[in-house]
């Protein structure tokens, strides 16, 4: 059976500098169907969406819309060709009315050159009613719930006559009822003959809603499956299918006493009833999907954010709530996820950055000088092999990998007993990645207790002595190093726990 798909991508590639985001992406979307694109974080789904939506331009490969080759220069052209992207966080204009949001850039005029507000209002009402979600056309978009904002975006897509509607993780911020409503709308659009691409991490939704499933991994196409003919286990295998043995060997370290003890930590609406311990010499990994609440738990432990109940102890001593300085005095360190914004003073030099967390200790009579900083900075820069020709090189001039080593160096200089590292290798090239892993492993060997957050399964499986899976703010599964496999970790991260093992 040969037919022309509504939208087709063949062998599309896209690189950002040296980083390949898409290697060889294929996708064929039919009219009147809902097509899921799934894959781990970093599999290239978002890049794919942005290429289709005209935000990025592909480097290579074919992009056909209704059989015709297209090459969008900007989002405007994509839109004009009938492609509409609905982002996870909708992009409305908060000061404009709902009706005007629907008509931005193409507001109708009356005969006398005024905006035809009555018509905009009427059409907005009709559209939102058709979607089953009546929204007052005259109210400001400000203050609409995320779900309602998405409805406005969908209404906008329909009113411009979109043929392809892409939803990029639309359900991530929705409640159960809102997800149902959205799925109802998606089915309605499919039945009207539109092609939908649905990006989601949640298997239950994907299987309930989508007709076809395309799996991506590491920027390339893996397989396309008819939902009816495939099992969840098969999909998980396709998502993770690669050997992870010995990629990141963590050396065996002597595991000692408990250093960090977290008990029943709860922050209402963010995470709930989190309990675990980390012992000296041990690396514990938080696995799970982006948005599962892993970083939030880490921030609460370190005291950047508060929590409602529960307790955190270091070596038996209670850590004060919302007080990072106190946490540091007890020997805690925190290497945040976003090193550019939260980890480094980008315009300061290497030396200043390394000694930042130990300045009080280095200072003499409350005054810090470059001479006091230097020995310590030189020592750590050398031990971490930070590649820089001078200690006064600005942090922003370094590569991502060297920046990360710098942040690590800053915390290692404090000689912590317990260190949290949040996504330590994101955006770092493979060589430096291995070095960061070696460093972390060495730290554990020296008796430091480590809590690592990572969205990359191979990294989790390679580094962790124990894996804790976080899903929707709760620890839902725990695996020992031996028991953890890509399949069971991914399963736990994407499924509500049904059976207690």
């Amino acid at each position, binding site marked *: 059976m040969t037919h022309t798909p509504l939208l087709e991508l063949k062998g599309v590639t896209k690189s950002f500098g040296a980083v390949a985001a898409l290697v060889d992406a294929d996708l064929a979307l039919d009219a009147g169907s809902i097509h899921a694109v799934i894959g781990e974080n970093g599999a290239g789904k978002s890049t794919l969406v942005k290429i289709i939506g005209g935000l990025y331009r592909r480097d290579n490969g074919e992009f056909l819309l209704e059989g015709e080759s297209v090459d969008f220069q900007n989002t405007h052209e994509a839109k004009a060709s009938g492609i509409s992207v609905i982002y996870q966080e909708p992009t409305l*204009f908060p*000061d404009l009315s709902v009706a005007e949001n629907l008509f931005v850039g193409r507001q109708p005029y009356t005969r006398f*050159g005024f905006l035809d507000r009555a018509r905009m209002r009427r059409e907005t009402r009709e559209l939102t009613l058709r979607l089953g979600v009546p929204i007052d056309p005259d109210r400001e978009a400000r203050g609409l719930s995320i779900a309602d904002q998405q409805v406005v975006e969908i209404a906008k897509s329909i009113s411009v006559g979109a043929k392809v509607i892409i939803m990029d993780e639309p359900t991530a911020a929705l409640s159960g009822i809102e997800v149902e409503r959205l799925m109802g709308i998606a089915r309605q659009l499919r039945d009207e003959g539109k092609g939908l691409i649905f990006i989601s991490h949640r298997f239950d939704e994907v299987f309930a809603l989508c007709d076809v499933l395309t799996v991506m991994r590491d920027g390339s196409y893996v397989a396309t499956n008819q939902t009816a003919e495939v099992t969840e286990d098969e999909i998980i295998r396709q998502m993770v299918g690669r050997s992870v043995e010995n990629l990141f060997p963590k050396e065996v370290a002597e595991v000692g006493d408990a250093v960090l003890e977290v008990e029943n930590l709860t922050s209402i609406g963010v995470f709930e009833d989190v309990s675990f311990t980390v012992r000296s010499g041990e690396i514990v990994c938080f696995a799970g999907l982006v948005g599962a609440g892993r970083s939030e738990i880490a921030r609460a432990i370190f005291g950047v954010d508060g929590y409602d109940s529960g307790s955190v102890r270091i070596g038996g001593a209670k850590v004060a709530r919302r007080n990072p300085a106190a946490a540091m005095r007890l020997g805690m360190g925190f290497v945040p996820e976003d090193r550019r914004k939260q980890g480094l003073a980008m315009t300061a030099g290497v030396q200043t950055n390394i000694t930042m967390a130990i300045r009080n200790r280095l200072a003499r009579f409350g005054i810090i000088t470059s001479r006091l900083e230097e020995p310590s900075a030189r020592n750590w820069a050398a031990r971490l092999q930070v590649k820089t020709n001078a200690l006064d090189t600005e942090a922003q001039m370094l590569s991502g990998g060297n920046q990360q080593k710098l942040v690590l160096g800053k915390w290692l200089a404090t000689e912590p007993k317990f260190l949290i590292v949040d996504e330590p290798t994101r955006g770092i090239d493979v060589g430096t990645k291995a070095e960061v892993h070696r460093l972390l492993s060495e730290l554990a060997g020296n008796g430091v207790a480590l809590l690592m957050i990572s969205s990359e399964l191979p990294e989790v499986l390679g580094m962790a002595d124990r894996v804790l899976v976080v899903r929707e703010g709760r620890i839902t599964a725990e695996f020992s190093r031996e028991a953890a496999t890509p399949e069971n970790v991914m399963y736990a991260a994407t499924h509500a726990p049904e059976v207690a093992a």
Partner: protein
Amino acid sequence: MTTTLKLPPIETGRSVFGKIIHAREVGLIVLIIALVAVTTVIQPSFLFSDGGFRELLRQPTILILIALGQAIVIITRNIDLSVGSILCLCTYLSGWLFANVPGIPIPVVVVIGILLGAFLGLINGLLVAFLKVPSLVITLGTLYAYRGIAILWIGPHFIRSSWLPPEYRKLGTMQVFGIPVLLIIVAIVVLLVGWFMTNRRAGRDLYALGSNPEAATLFGLSERRLTLNAFVTSGALAGLGGLVYLSIYATGDAKVGTGYELESVAAAVVGGVAIIGGSGTIWGVALGAFFLATISSALPVLGVPSLWQQSIVGVFIVGAILLDRLLFLNRTLQAKRKGRAL
């Protein structure tokens, strides 16, 4: 399976929102009337003297023009601090043309004056749009740069009323049914700009850009083009302001227009333009400018020591911002309640 959900009809929030949005304009009109009434009771010549009424209506026109341009720029999340310096250059160029090009028709001078303003605005716009430097810094720079050019060019000279053709001088005092012609001209400009900003796509795009620049870019609106438009308009209106200045005062030196940069920001804010962009009406700005200009002419008449006058203007600015904040919080609260009810 399609189940038709029976949904309750939605009540349109127009009454609530309409009230809030219009409260600013109504409030300003009430304030202006009260101010004029009180001042007149204390000092009847404020209104009922030879030039009193004319002065009351004529004097705010310059600030209104400048504030309109300023408001358009602020709506796009920028600011234009160079308007006073632009006004100075346009005033002097116009006067100089009358003096040095004998018989030059008035409309030609008017067009050249406005074009010079637009050109200086274009320079601001290009710098902001292409260098991606915050407009606060860029226009702070051009505030001094343009003023410096004015000082170099004008030096100790000043425009003499003898330079101007008698018809142009008459324009400043001409009245139709007791209303100064200048106010009529400015009112037409306000109507045009207001219509453009509320009823043309190009105007709505400026609001959209200021409301959410990321969304505007995603949407395919050209941030550069819109930023340029806003600054060119602001410059052109400052140029027109310079021409009005010339016809009212028939003089001008290198210091003309100093202080308008902040007064126009104040007028926009009092008129209901949010300093972070995206909202505010042209009608509100015009009334805000009228109000501030009237205060500064009324306070001396009321016998308020000049030391206090600026403080009183300041109180109104802070008051306007507090009012906006309260209205905003109230609106967000109501919107949330509504969102939940649906």
